[in-house]
């Protein structure tokens, strides 16, 4: 319980007027950059790095942590309202979140995201307090073979979300994997057509914004005259009892996915959000609602991405190991004060560390206070007449794509992939497998090539780590279970469902 006492001291330090002010600024800025597509927390922190020259380390870190958590939350707002995910970690949220918004349930979607983020962030921070000093040394034991197996597991889980038509699902998945192949991950330019702007690959934010927002705007424009205006109903402003009942388990499960992945060197926030989505879809009492705005599909992934932000701080604080771009910049900030990061940080700078941890709790509470009352207000945004609304969506989509790397070229890319999004809607291809392909393809390749490079091409390296073996066994078991159940009750494809995908 030593940790708790130290944490209380941390609260005492973090609750000074000055530090509270920096926490509020951080949370507000974080939410703002999360809402603005393309400007992620990493870039914001990098631009704010000079602030470390003029304020004390505790204030700066408290503000940075606020930005990090705020950014993780803020990304969900545009995902839900405008179908325009601002960060790669909120791409999954857009899938159900935007459907909810269209059904007049935007306020509930935003609320479950806000509360889920709070719950996950708080539990995540608690886990961080309890475990950071002891477990962090373990995460480095996971090598590329284990990471490869974990990503393979994630890819395997895609089969659960291929939609009613396996063929269309696979087409979408392979389209995504193909987009993920662009770039020079292997040191050789691939599918870049001699254009150096493609050498780093196509950013996931550009793909997601194009497929979701541009694709949909074009689809709506194409049908404007043929279909009656579907008015977005004005829903209840708050979550109902049923919404709470359907949200709390996904929040907890999302946290369970997010935290460990955040702590892993190759984890990040994308894979857990997507695993959480797949899990909720499998476990849901009303699986038929998925694809039409199921609250579980927002609650889980949103909890997962905030929990992963907390997880990221485990290796950062405990062994000075940044696992995401945002964490790397926080580390730079710490080092610019001449503070040695690493296993000794908890001993040499206890005040700083515990003040930071305490401020994470404070930041989470502030985020909830800031965002919950705003949810019904944001939701009214959708009452804007459709032409203006879509003009706004197109504007923010372009802004988001442009600010990924400040290249006009990305706008051209946005339009081209947007046309692909339109074609996918026309031919009833589900968009989720494509997005997952883009996210997982390059990661899978990177882990595989690095594993094989280290082993000089010896394939047996892939099952040389215990975690990898366990994951493969799990995949094998799941395969057997699927095949067995498939043999018992072969169910015919339901072509009726496909209409839903079309309107997706």
């Amino acid at each position, binding site marked *: 319980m030593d940790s708790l006492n130290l944490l209380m001291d941390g609260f005492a330090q973090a609750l000074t007027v000055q530090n509270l002010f920096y926490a509020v600024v951080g949370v507000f800025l974080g939410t703002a950059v999360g809402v603005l597509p393309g400007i992620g927390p990493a870039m914001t922190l990098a*631009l704010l790095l000079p602030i470390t020259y003029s304020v004390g380390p505790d204030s700066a870190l408290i503000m940075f942590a606020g930005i990090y958590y705020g950014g993780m939350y803020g990304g969900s707002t545009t995902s839900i309202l405008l179908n325009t995910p601002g960060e790669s970690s909120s791409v999954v949220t857009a899938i159900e979140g935007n459907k909810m918004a269209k059904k007049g349930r935007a306020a509930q979607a935003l609320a479950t995201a806000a509360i889920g983020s709070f719950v996950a962030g708080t539990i995540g921070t608690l886990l961080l307090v309890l475990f950071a000093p002891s477990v962090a040394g373990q995460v480095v034991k996971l090598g590329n073979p284990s990471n490869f197996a974990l990503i393979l597991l994630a890819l395997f889980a895609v089969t659960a979300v291929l939609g009613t038509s396996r063929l269309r699902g696979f087409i979408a998945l392979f389209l995504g994997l193909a987009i993920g192949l662009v770039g020079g991950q292997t040191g050789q330019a691939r599918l870049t057509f001699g254009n150096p702007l493609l050498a*780093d690959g196509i950013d996931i934010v550009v793909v997601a914004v194009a497929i979701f927002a541009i694709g949909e705007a074009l689809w709506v424009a194409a049908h404007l005259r043929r279909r009656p205006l579907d008015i977005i109903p004005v829903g209840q402003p708050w979550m109902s009892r049923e919404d709470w009942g359907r949200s709390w388990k996904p929040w907890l499960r999302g946290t369970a996915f997010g935290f460990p992945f955040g702590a892993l060197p190759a984890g990040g926030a994308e894979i857990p959000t997507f695993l959480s989505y797949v899990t909720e879809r499998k476990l849901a009492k009303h699986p038929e609602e998925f694809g039409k705005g199921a609250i579980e599909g927002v609650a889980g992934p949103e909890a997962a991405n905030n929990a992963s932000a907390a997880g990221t701080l485990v290796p950062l604080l405990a*062994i*000075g*190991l940044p696992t995401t*771009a945002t964490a790397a910049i926080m580390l730079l900030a710490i080092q610019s004060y001449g503070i040695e990061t690493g296993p*000794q940080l908890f001993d040499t700078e206890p005040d700083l560390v515990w003040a930071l941890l305490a401020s994470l709790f404070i930041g989470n509470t502030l985020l909830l206070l800031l965002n919950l009352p705003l949810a019904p207000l944001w939701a009214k945004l959708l009452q804007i007449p459709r032409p203006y609304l879509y003009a706004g969506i197109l504007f923010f989509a372009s802004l988001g794509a442009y600010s990924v*790397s400040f290249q006009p070229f990305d706008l051209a890319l946005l339009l081209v992939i947007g046309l692909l999004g339109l074609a996918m809607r026309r031919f009833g291809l589900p968009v989720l497998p494509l997005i997952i392909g883009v996210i997982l393809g390059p990661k899978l390749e990177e882990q595989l090539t690095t594993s094989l490079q*280290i082993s000089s091409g010896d394939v047996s390296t892939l099952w040389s780590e215990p975690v990898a073996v366990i994951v493969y066994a799990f995949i094998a078991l799941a395969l057997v279970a699927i095949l067995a159940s498939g043999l018992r009750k072969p169910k015919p494809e339901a072509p009726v469902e496909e209409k839903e995908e079309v309107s997706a």
Partner: protein
Amino acid sequence: MTPTRRSHRLTATVFLVAAALLLSACGVTRGGEGEANRRLSMYIPNSPGGGYDLTGRAAARVLEDAELSGRFEVTNVIGAGGTVAMQRLLNEEGVDDLVMSMGLGVVGATYTNDSKARVSQATPIARLIEDQEALIVPKDSPFQTVQDLVDAWKADPSSVTIGGGSSPGGPDFLFPMQLAKTVGIDPKQVKYIVYDGGGPLTSALLGKKIDVGASGPSEFEGQLEDGSLRVLAVSGEERLETVDAPTLKESGIDMTFVNWRGILAPPGISDESRERLVAMFTEMHKTKGWQDAIKRNGWIDSFATGEEFETFLLEQDKRVETTLKELGLA
């Protein structure tokens, strides 16, 4: 409802812009004409937080603070390890109010990305700083000295796995390749693994997934301090104050290697413009603000301008080209 929405957006945007202005630390509107008021632009060839970004922004900030220049408009031109920015700089022929921060990695990237842009085509202004590279091993590595490493490496090049934080063509890649060549190993046989920056590289070293890390030692401060990682040797001419390890030369390997960063201007600018920019950065180098920035970031001051930097730049360009050609990467 439009006003509500607009005001939220507006607040957010205003806040961001205000913060950005505040932090670019200018805020002062300077009136009148003259050198100190000229607005300048700077390209940064990688993303915010990266090495060129830190160096470039630090220089711009010092120049503004010391009133040696007007406001700087700093733009991150991201892509292909700096090749995109390099190409854009070369396209701005004759533009005399634009500079770009760059370094060794950009030189390599222009070759590995099959680009026609070459650093030698731009106008060299100044070399600002240097970073040494270090050979880093886990605590219980069998290698105690560089000689141990070289012996094992020569006996079987494929038995030693070297990781680095830069892609082929970058400093962490060029360093072990040139080292291999110096000790008589075919660079093609070097087993080099690319990690996405210092974090993943640290994690691979701590987890003993690789044998040796080649990178700037500043990214491993914490681990070196507590002893979970060790440095076998540093690559520069002299030992580093912060790292308790010999240089390669002291270890009997006749080679030095430095990762450097500097400033280029577009091609085709007049001699006066060039002189003006050189003078500006020379003044900047003398300020306390710049010396503080060097200290804070653990860089090594290696300021050079004019002929000296030009010769250095051409020599580096040639050396990188040779190394990459031998590997079939250029």
